């Protein structure tokens, strides 16, 4: 009897336990639901306000208007225009606060407040900001280039500015005007720049004598008279006159090798003519330019043989081709930006060199200015396996000496040291904070 009663007391125990479990799980669900708050739709799919702010600032400064306004806190018209522009370019549900700070140098404080504009009292529950540094238009940023030859041998630039030599395929220019432009473009990058004023001075360096104590070895020699090359009177005789002066071109190749020069041909077929006004007063290049003699393709063939230390023999076979439209290589485009030299990226080549010269004369392409068209190289710096190199731009006339400068700088790659950007009073920080209003 007692057992039965006891059993009757516990008869619904399981059900009670289950309800207790349900209460516990319900409590757990409520508690977990309380903490597991789902984000608002705006947070689930947010507009990237930081990027929007940055791109807005960049757009407004596309023509440096934002920079100008940032330095004119008292100019109400400029700030009013800036506010109109901000309102016009941001979506209607975006509010903003734009603040300008002065950037300080030294001391403990980095920034001080200058001016602020906003179109709302608060930026809502979520906001983000981007900052943008602007520079005063009064600031001049200087760039100091590294000198070629500063950390090694060489560093001399010879520009053939020979008044007693005529040019060909430099139509519209004279050798002298090109020499002057090249001097302005390139002299900041070389340790020493010497304008060889006549063929007598050219003869001196060919003889191994410096003009003003400069380093002769590892120099760069730019021939400014196009397809012609100046020839000193002392070399207008035998044996240099062999093969219609092809032998002289062989000698030039030899000297390039001997002194490890970089010989530069700015346009057309290299060393196609030799020029000396006094020695060839009655000879013309067959196109009416007097003071020069036509060597023809034999000149460059001889030059290459001289560079490769091959014995001279007369070879008048033409080696250049006409690929036509050529494009600057990606590497050349990069250096356009680096050195701030912007020739047209498309050029016409009618005197491109064949790729086969690299194997025929032990050359390697050190810097390729133009993309290859077939097996034609419209412009490149070639380096000989032992010593000496040359830059040949096989483009059609008239020459663009910016390409010459670009080719040489891309070959030597002198670094540019730019001045300090955050000079006191010259930079201001613009912070644009954006917030979203409306919706959830």
């Amino acid at each position, binding site marked *: 009897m007692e057992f039965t009663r006891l*059993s*009757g007391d516990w*008869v*619904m*125990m*399981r*059900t009670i*336990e*289950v*309800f207790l*479990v*349900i209460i516990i*799980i*319900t409590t757990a*669900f409520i508690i*977990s*639901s309380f903490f*597991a708050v*789902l*984000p608002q739709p705006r*947070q*689930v*799919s*947010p*507009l*990237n306000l930081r*990027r*929007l702010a940055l*791109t*807005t600032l*960049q*757009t*407004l*400064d*596309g*023509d*440096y*208007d*934002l920079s100008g*306004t940032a330095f004119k806190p008292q100019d109400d018209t*400029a700030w*009013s*225009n*800036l*506010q*109109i*522009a*901000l*309102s*016009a*370019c*941001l*979506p*209607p549900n975006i509010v903003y606060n734009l603040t300008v700070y002065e950037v300080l140098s030294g001391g403990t404080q980095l920034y001080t407040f200058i001016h602020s504009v906003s179109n709302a009292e608060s930026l809502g529950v979520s906001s983000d900001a981007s900052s943008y540094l602007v520079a005063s238009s009064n600031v001049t940023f200087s760039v100091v280039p590294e000198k070629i030859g500063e950390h090694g041998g060489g560093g001399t630039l010879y520009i053939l500015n020979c008044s007693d030599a005529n040019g060909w395929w430099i139509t519209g220019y004279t050798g002298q005007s090109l020499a002057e432009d090249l001097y302005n473009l390139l002299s900041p990058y070389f340790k020493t720049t010497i304008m060889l004023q006549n063929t007598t001075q050219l003869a001196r360096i060919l003889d191994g004598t410096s003009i003003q104590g400069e380093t002769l070895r590892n120099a760069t020699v730019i021939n400014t008279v196009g397809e012609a090359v100046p020839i000193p009177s002392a070399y207008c005789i035998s044996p240099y006159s062999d093969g219609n002066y092809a032998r002289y071109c062989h000698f030039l190749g030899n000297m390039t090798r001997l002194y490890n020069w970089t010989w530069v041909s700015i346009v057309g077929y290299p060393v196609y003519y030799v020029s000396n006004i006094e020695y060839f007063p009655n000879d013309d290049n067959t196109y009416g330019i007097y003071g020069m003699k036509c060597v023809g393709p034999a000149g460059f063939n001889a030059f290459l043989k001289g560079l490769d230390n091959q014995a001279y023999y007369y070879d008048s076979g033409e080696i250049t081709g006409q690929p036509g439209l050529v*494009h600057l290589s*990606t590497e050349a*485009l990069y250096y356009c930006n680096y050195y701030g030299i912007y020739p047209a*990226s*498309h050029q016409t080549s009618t005197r491109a060199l064949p790729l086969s010269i690299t194997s025929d004369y032990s050359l390697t392409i050190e810097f390729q200015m133009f993309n290859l068209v077939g097996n034609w190289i419209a412009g490149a710096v070639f380096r000989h396996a032992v010593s000496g190199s040359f830059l040949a731009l096989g483009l059609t006339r008239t020459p663009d000496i910016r390409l010459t400068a670009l080719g040489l700088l891309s070959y030597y790659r002198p670094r540019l040291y730019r001045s300090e950007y955050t000079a006191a009073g010259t930079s201001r920080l613009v912070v644009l904070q954006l917030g979203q209003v409306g919706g959830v």
Partner: protein
Amino acid sequence: MTGSTIDHLVSLMVFLGAILLFIGLFNQTIQTAILYQHHRSLATKCSDLLDNMLLNPGNPLDWGKSNCTPTGFGLQDPEFTQYRLSPFSLMRLLSSAGNRVYYSQTGKWYSNVSWGIGGGYLLLPESECINYSTASKLLGVNGTYGFQLTINPTLTVNVREVQLIPLRLEVQVMGPGVPLSGANLDYLLFWTIGREEGGWPLFNYTSCSTQTNSAGLAYLEFSDNPYIRVDDNKTAYTIILKAHVGGLYGIGYKSRETITSAGNIIPFVESYENGTVLLAHKWGKNDPDGNQGALFFNATFYVLSDNFVPINVYIPNSTGLVNYGKEGKPFHRIQIPTANPGFLVVAYCKSANEYGMVVMPWGIGTIGISVVFGGDPFGKEWVVTDMRQVLVGDIAYQAKLALWSLQGYQVIG
């Protein structure tokens, strides 16, 4: 004993019921959280993808200037950094804004970037455009995400004729929903001034500046120097306007395209790389029957300098006539220079008293054309969007990307 059994049965059933209920409840919460997470990652992907498109020029760098198929997709102008887009790469995107156009004379389909909007046409051969599928593959989202990229000018410059004698134009400059007050307006007006002996029209141009009022409106009246009347199509004109305020630049245009009794002219780009353009005699839904007369034209290509001065670039064979029916000259082929952005102005006339003009941009941005590229987001379960302010040339544009998932949860499409 019976009571205990009932107790067990009841408790078991209640317990199982409760467990099922709670599994459902927890599962719903977890599913919602996963879905939210999924949508959140979609938003992040959208932002990344947009930057991928806008911050790299693609490969090769000049794919926008040639008709090659790029091996890398990007819209950045290769000559600049940051968010500055190439006017040419944008032009090569196969437009999904308007219906594709078929021209029976060439047997080709054309991408319809602009079909006569404000007298402006930009029709490129589809075979030379980059289509959505190619772009998706190059971006690595083929089969996983769908997208639509919209590049719209930030400022809208609308031109409306409010008076014909003399010509009076109302110009409205708008931001996204707000009129732009106090905006400086520079404009170029090209207008016909009669006919050459050969029959083709001559035109002149002038430039001037003004400012919008507080409602974002400006009025231009041509009552003197030049005096222009456009009643009965006596004169045709093309006006290009550049608005700027506070560093924000916008551009707009209007060309007085008229349907003369001999039809009109529609420019089709024949070869993107070579810049050949077909000036087609009136073509479209109202195909000419061949009985109307010839239409004389004069086409001129302009490049705009930094200070908004038009530079006339010579194009050979830029004048002549087209006649769809009788003389077997349904179109005339010209070649424009492709190196720089510019616009082609085509003036045409049937007689000395009936003129029309159309304009064709070369490069997005020269006259403020929009681009819509990609799939259609309509009907997709969850579409995220992101936007950036970009520059095309010096004109402010907004690049908006709509992105949706083609996989995963609750995709309807």
